[in-house]
């Protein structure tokens, strides 16, 4: 999706959203930005719950600044077509569904979760 932004206020909006995202992401061990009607988001939530992790979920469609935050996330991910879900672990960006699964299969996700204190052996 291409968004042509000409107004200064929207630039500010995106910048503010990025800041907000980073702040929210660092508040909990596992943070998921989601949309309530998105089924892939549902899948990623089930993935973490299945592993015994309790993620903090922000539903962007229920947030007044949700649109801006989605835009900011798109920028963070490098312009993907489907933005959500996006996962942060220990304040650091892991990525969308494919990155999360890749990291889980390659065995990197569990150590990351333990490091962030989201998983206990």
């Amino acid at each position, binding site marked *: 999706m291409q968004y042509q932004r000409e107004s200064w206020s929207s630039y500010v909006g995106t910048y503010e959203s990025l800041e907000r995202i980073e702040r929210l992401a660092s508040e909990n061990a596992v943070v998921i930005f989601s949309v309530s009607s998105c089924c892939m988001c549902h899948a*990623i939530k089930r993935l973490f719950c299945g592993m015994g992790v309790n993620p903090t979920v922000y539903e962007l469609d229920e947030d007044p600044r949700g649109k801006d935050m989605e835009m900011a996330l798109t920028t963070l991910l490098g312009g993907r077509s489907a933005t959500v879900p996006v996962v942060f672990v220990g304040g650091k960006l892991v990525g969308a569904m494919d990155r999360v699964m890749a990291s889980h299969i390659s*065995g990197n996700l*569990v150590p990351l979760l333990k490091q962030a204190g989201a998983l206990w052996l």
Partner: protein
Amino acid sequence: MASNSMNMQQLQQQQQQQQQSQDHHHNQYQQMSYGMMMQPVISSSTIINHAPNFVSSSHSKDGAGAYDLGELDQALFLYLDSQDPSSSTVQDQRHNSGMRPPTLNIFPSQPMHVDPSASKLQGSNMGLVSPATSGSKRSSEPSMELSNTKTEHPPPRPPTSAVGPPPPKAVKREGNNGAGRRGLTSSSEHDGPKTPDPKTLRRLAQNREAARKSRLRKKAYVQQLESSRMKLTQLEQDLQRARAQGAFMGGGGALLGAEQGLPLGMGNLSSDAVVFDMDYGRWLEEHHRLMCELRAAVQEHLPDNELQLYVDHCLAHFDEVMNLKSMLAKTDVFHLVSGNWKTPAERCFMWMGGFRPSELIKIIVNQIEPLTEQQLMGICGLQQSTQEAEEALSQGLDALNQSLSDVIVSDSLSSPPNMANYMGQMAMAMSKLSTLEGFVRQADSLRHQTIHRLHQLLTVRQAARCLLAIAEYFHRLRALSSLWVARPRQD
């Protein structure tokens, strides 16, 4: 076949052009000396001079020349024999060919009357020309090809009637005038008119064989083309029928994760699906070949670095089918999900458009022993993570099914529907359906990562055995499908 003859023609053209520039004056001399016979003479010299090229090129290309030398050489030598005074000159100039000869002027427009007497041949132009092609239909084809290359003098090539075997005298004359044949000139030049040169005979026989083989090959190829063309028109008709039916309101469309209800014959396949099926078929053949190579490599106990090459090759080939699937997912994800491109037994075990990674690990874990402690832990971890990922994706898909169902039902399932809401609901349902592609993509990505992670965890030899075990497993499933389809039924 066509390509072979094209190559031949190109080769021929090149060679002719080269030789033309070299020896043009010779040809002019020939032209002036031999009045009406000029063209055929030059053509015959060209044939002689080029025949070895044809022979060599056809032999180098596996005898695949489309040029029929079998009957041609007989005719040629018959003709040359009639030109006794000129034959020596012709022989001397065996490396020139000069002019692009209307070589095929020596091919007759009338059936060949095999007349061993030289004097008779000398007399009549037609007689001279007639022996050439022997009028057989088979040879007219290559002669057509040959004539096509001679753009400067393209005489018409009427098909001539078949002719009997060459009389012994003609053969002898061929031997006498075997100038153009490589390596034969010296010996044959000095032979008497009636002494057959064994080398020439043998070479002629070889030429005939090669020509015959190439004719058969060409026939087979043409048949293949014809049948493919028929298949293509059939497919196009199916496609048109399917489009005309209109998929929007029609029933029987594949539901998420469900088997496709309608049989293939109803023309449900999109053109992308058809192309995918063909590509997948080809991939399977190549896969089988690679596995045979890998098996041989394992049995030969090749050193690790060499075995690694085979394993890498197989992995790269696996990535290819992932690419094919990824491309199809963009345009026709339902074909992937339906599993119609897989055999029935494989379809039983299908999950989201392909095999289930966790099941695969269960299958191979016993085939790659012994495993170190570390490897075992890695594989158990992989087993667990694939299971968790599969579970998550399946639950996501269930949520999609549920949500789609809710949208279609909307408030009520009254018929006829409230058109104001109906189209809006359909639009929403469409957008939900489009997320199916995302799920199939994630599932394929999971499969891809599982295979590569396995490769990371295992040694080269274990990885090779693992790949072979997986291939054998699916091979047996396919065999089971064939047996099932062919099972005797009791009615």
